[in-house]
């Protein structure tokens, strides 16, 4: 079970501790995360590598003392060289919370990348790396409210954890995914998408599917569905994508304080 407790309060920016000043744009509700788990480095043993697309693979690890996480959270991963040099990067958790003692990360092979490069060219089952987490409850989705997910490239990874969680837990709270990829062969986790997903292809698309970037026309029908209580929007991807997608959501009427963004840098 995740140790992270959901204590989200929407638009609570001004309702927090007594002296926190009121502000013009409210930040969405927060989720308290276990700080103890985040402070500890643990050994994660690679057990399996699965290819997703030509440039993306999923890495499955055994982490026996993993405290659990909420879909959408990430961790910090550390590699150590023989001379003591370390490289640390953040990665979103791709797996749902109830994968006891195991976690999965889905990594894009970044050209010239130090950490993703090691994973894609060197790593093999049995290798050990270090992780700490889960981190940052802000982008997490406990499965409580209708969720509108918008991702591009590896930005779909934390959103996939949400979809998997919803399925595994048999939740019927509304959830929709808009996912953007350059072409069908670059769509990560493609085999797992169902009726909740609309794929947008920016360079190459199958016969009869339009090519073009995420637009107001993709967002409008989803916002028009308006589930009871409205959508909680989760946007994830590169900064350029996050800026574009969050602007489309705001223009389509999604309240600014109900858009959470995870930028991969």
């Amino acid at each position, binding site marked *: 079970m995740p140790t992270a407790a959901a204590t989200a309060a929407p638009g609570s920016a001004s309702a927090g501790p007594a002296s*926190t*000043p009121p502000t013009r744009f409210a930040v969405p509700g927060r989720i308290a995360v276990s700080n103890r788990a985040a402070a500890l480095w643990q050994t994660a043993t690679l057990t399996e590598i699965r290819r997703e697309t030509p440039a993306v693979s999923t890495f499955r690890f055994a982490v026996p003392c993993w405290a659990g996480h909420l879909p959408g959270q990430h961790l910090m991963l550390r590699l150590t060289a023989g001379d003591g040099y370390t490289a640390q990067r953040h990665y979103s958790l791709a797996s749902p919370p109830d994968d006891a003692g195991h976690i999965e990360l889905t990594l894009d092979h970044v050209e010239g990348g130090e950490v993703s490069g090691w994973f894609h060219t*060197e790593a093999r089952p049995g290798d050990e790396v270090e992780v700490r987490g889960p981190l940052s409850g802000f982008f997490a989705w406990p499965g409580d409210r209708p969720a509108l997910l918008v991702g591009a490239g590896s930005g779909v990874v934390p959103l996939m954890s949400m979809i998997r969680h919803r399925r595994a837990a048999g939740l019927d709270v509304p959830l929709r995914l808009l996912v953007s990829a350059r072409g069908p062969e670059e769509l990560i986790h493609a085999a797992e998408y169902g009726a909740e997903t609309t794929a947008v292809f920016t360079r190459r698309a199958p016969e009869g599917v339009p090519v073009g970037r995420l637009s107001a026309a993709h967002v409008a029908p989803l916002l028009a569905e308006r589930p009871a209580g409205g959508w909680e929007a989760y946007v994830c991807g590169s900064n350029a994508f996050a800026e574009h997608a969050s602007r489309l959501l705001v223009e389509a009427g999604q309240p600014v304080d109900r858009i959470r963004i995870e930028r991969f840098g």
Partner: protein
Amino acid sequence: MNVTRGFTGRPRVHNPGLPPGQYDAGDDWPVLSAEVTPDLTPADWTFRIDGLVAEPRSWDWDEAHTLPASAYEGDIHCVTSWSKFGVRFAGVSLDAFLDVVRPDASATHAVAYSHSGYTTNLPLADLTDGRAWIAWEYDGKPLPAEHGGPARLLVPHLYFWKSAKWIAGLRLLDHDEPGFWEQNGYHARGNPWEEQRYSGD
């Protein structure tokens, strides 16, 4: 030490300016903010200091620009582990604002808050004596919106989440009060040289 099999890392020269666990992002300046970039023009921007001060007050864009200009040239460090060397910001030293409002002797901490609803806490000692700025220029140009423009707090000796983008004000307190990321498990102070990333570090 847990050496990772087959990992050598990128060829590197020892850089004494690089805090532990950080890497040099070079020309990149990653953007990391959890909220929608606010549509904030200089005409909408205001900055206020209140709480434990003799004379609370607000400045608008033009009023803030009448204070003496001050620049920072040096390095910045993000908790996500990139550092950026030799950056140039221009704006006004926070000391110039604090001189006007005159902090009470009882003030020990501040909560910085932004026009987007973000908050972060800082010891007052980290904001005084030429260690903090309100910055509106980067590299000789207006600070881009995604990096906190029109104006952000700049506290370069702490991890960069303390340098609140779209800064709206500071409230001075006689106690520490966790802000947005600090409530989400991040360290209360965030000194990169001590590698104070998460609560418990």
